[in-house]
């Protein structure tokens, strides 16, 4: 009988046998993420789980390209010079990137201030440029982003709405295409993925002062779409196997086999996507690095959760349901 092969021979990892172990491991991984999120929510004035960028708070970011690497002590000097022209509490960050040839933009200095678009601070940007040129004579202003404070809070509102809507639509779609419990479990894994990505950037925010912008939300939504992809592929296999094997095997056996059958696909797909993403991260435009990083983290945790979270929880739920039916 070929059927028995389908179930028994293909186990690469026995997910179901060690399911509580995997869930515990996931839980442990989540702890630092949740801790960082709580830390930021309790210490920041706006109670956001992440350091928010100017897209959401309003403000101006001036980005300069400079020809040499900016040392830590230079940042202090730049700060003093900029504060001297009357800009309060500028946030100064530097990025260095390997370039292909000399004409590439390699070192970026970004200076974040309050919103400089209004009439009173018309010349501030020029003054900052002059102040920076004291130390870096060939500094070139390559990018300006300015967001008024009212627009900022509006963007934040829209963004949260988009995220919420995406979540709801996913659950509805999966509940409709599969079964309701699949929908809820998909939502749960989505939440888990979101916590991983947000937590990662919360930690990065605490230690490297990384602030998130609307591109980050784009990354989050992409990650949602992507990890739902992974989960759906696993669920699709479970659904198919359930249809034809449910009489001969328990749901846990079927789920275990399904995860194992899709394992090669899950890993290969993530690998190919990660190839392109890492290429973008290492060699792509310097201004979208964090955006790409967020997607990288999301793809990794998305694949992880489609293998280790979605199926395991489904098996627990199905077993509970089976017990209830038996009673």
């Amino acid at each position, binding site marked *: 009988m070929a059927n028995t092969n389908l179930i028994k021979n293909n186990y690469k990892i026995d997910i179901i046998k060690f399911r509580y172990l995997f869930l515990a491991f996931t839980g442990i991984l989540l702890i630092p993420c949740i801790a960082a999120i709580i830390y930021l929510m309790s210490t920041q004035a706006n109670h956001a789980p992440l350091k928010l960028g100017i897209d959401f708070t309003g403000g101006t970011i001036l980005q300069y390209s400079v020809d040499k690497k900016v040392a830590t002590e230079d940042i202090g000097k730049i700060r003093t010079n900029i504060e001297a022209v009357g800009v309060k509490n500028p946030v100064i960050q530097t990025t260095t990137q390997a370039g292909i040839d000399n004409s590439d933009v390699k070192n970026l200095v970004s200076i974040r201030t309050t919103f400089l678009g209004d009439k009173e601070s018309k010349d501030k940007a020029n003054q900052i440029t002059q102040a920076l040129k004291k130390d870096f004579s060939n500094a070139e202003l*390559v990018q300006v982003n*300015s967001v008024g404070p009212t627009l900022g809070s509006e963007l934040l509102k829209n963004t949260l709405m988009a995220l919420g809507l*995406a979540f709801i639509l996913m659950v509805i779609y999966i509940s409709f295409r599969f079964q309701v419990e699949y929908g809820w479990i998909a939502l749960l894994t989505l939440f888990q993925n979101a916590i991983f990505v947000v937590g990662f950037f919360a930690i990065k925010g605490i230690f490297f002062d990384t602030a998130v912008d609307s591109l980050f939300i784009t990354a989050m939504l992409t990650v949602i779409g992507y990890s739902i992809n992974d989960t759906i592929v696993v669920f699709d296999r479970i659904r198919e196997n359930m249809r034809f094997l449910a009489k001969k095997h328990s749901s846990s056996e079927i789920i275990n086999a399904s995860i194992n059958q899709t394992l090669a696909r899950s890993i290969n797909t993530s690998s190919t*996507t990660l*190839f392109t993403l890492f290429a973008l991260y290492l060699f792509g*435009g310097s201004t*979208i690095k964090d955006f790409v990083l967020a997607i990288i983290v999301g793809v990794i945790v998305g694949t992880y959760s489609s293998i280790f979270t979605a199926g395991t929880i489904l098996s627990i739920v199905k077993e509970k349901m089976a017990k209830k039916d038996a009673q």
Partner: protein
Amino acid sequence: MKNKLILFWIIIAITVSSIFVLYKKPASLGLDLVGGSRLMLEAQTSKAVPNITPEIMDSLQYAIENRVNAMGVGETIVQRIGTKRLLIEIPNITDTAKAKEFIGQTAQLEFKRPAIAFDGSTTWESTGLTGKDLRKSLVGSAPTTGEWMVELEFNNEGAKKFSDLTKELQGKQMAIFFNGELQSAPRVNEQITGGRAQITGGEGGFEYTEAKQMVDLLNAGALPVGAEIIQEESVGPTLGQDSINKSKIAGLIGIGAVMIFMIAYYRVLGLVSCFALIIYAIINFAIFKLVPVTLTLTGIAGFILSIGMAIDANILIFERTKEELRMGRTLFTAINSGFDRAFTSIFDSNVSTVMTCLILYYFGASLVKGFALTLIIGVCLSMFSAITVTKNFMHLIFGSKELKYPQLFGLRKEEIQNAYVAKETKREKAKFGVLD
């Protein structure tokens, strides 16, 4: 078999015409790639104008368009966003400060008459003669001093108002205000009926650029309400070019790595998917140019991500085909059921991606929209490339032959088993994986 060949030539024809499109049509690149500024203006309410009506927005947009065009910097876009905002895109501009000043000025021209205020001092009061009554304005120079000045020509109504006003103010001063600032206050010697007037620059006169800017602003028309810049994104040309170069390199490396992996892991199947991927990329870029999609940095990221997803469809199919082969299906059946059974996965997962993209497109800011749009196009096209192109190629290559060399699929010979059992299975059942 004949149908398969026809389909093959259709695919080739689409690809060739796409290549043609790629050569003929220029790509439209976003501001973050060519350099330029994007400004968001918000109409401000005031006591005089408590509500921003669509009519006000129309005239605001008209005035802003005129101004932006007067700058003469190439293809600019002025677009209405929501009920009270305008998005202005100006490519290739480096000096944004100047642009901002030029765009943001309300350009209110007003003629005022002297009046006595409550506290007894002299002030100016409105006369009803404003910039709206102008026909046009020019830069001129005073015949005696050679100083630059702004020449005004009123329309019929304006000429009548001006004539009445000068008659009334004979022997008195008349003031000309521009944006609330007193420009000059000449003494009116006699009634002026010709409908012409000049603004001189007061002490020291106008600089030429000053006069020119005022003329441009007056000709473009005054803004009906104040407008404030609430968002600005400017990218210098250096960074733009840098981003283009880097994206190209990243894209090539990314695609190259994917192809090497696919060939190493799936052998002949991988090779097929590489060709499908190349066709996918060509058609995709042709669609970008035809729609046209303005390529931004995030848009390129969306495209590169969609490559990952296009490959995912192939991987799903190949894994399924290999599994079928392992279970002992003949090659032809294995390929067909590989596609049939992978289809629901591909479909469901792509629908979910398209759904998130639609949300992004609807709610997102312009940068985000570019990403969502390229990803939607990519995902939809990948359904075509994975299912039609890859399947067609596989059928043409393998036909209904037996699989003699499982290594070609990255399978070991001993993995293939029970080929005999599969042949016994009824076709409909085999399709759903039921073996009895």
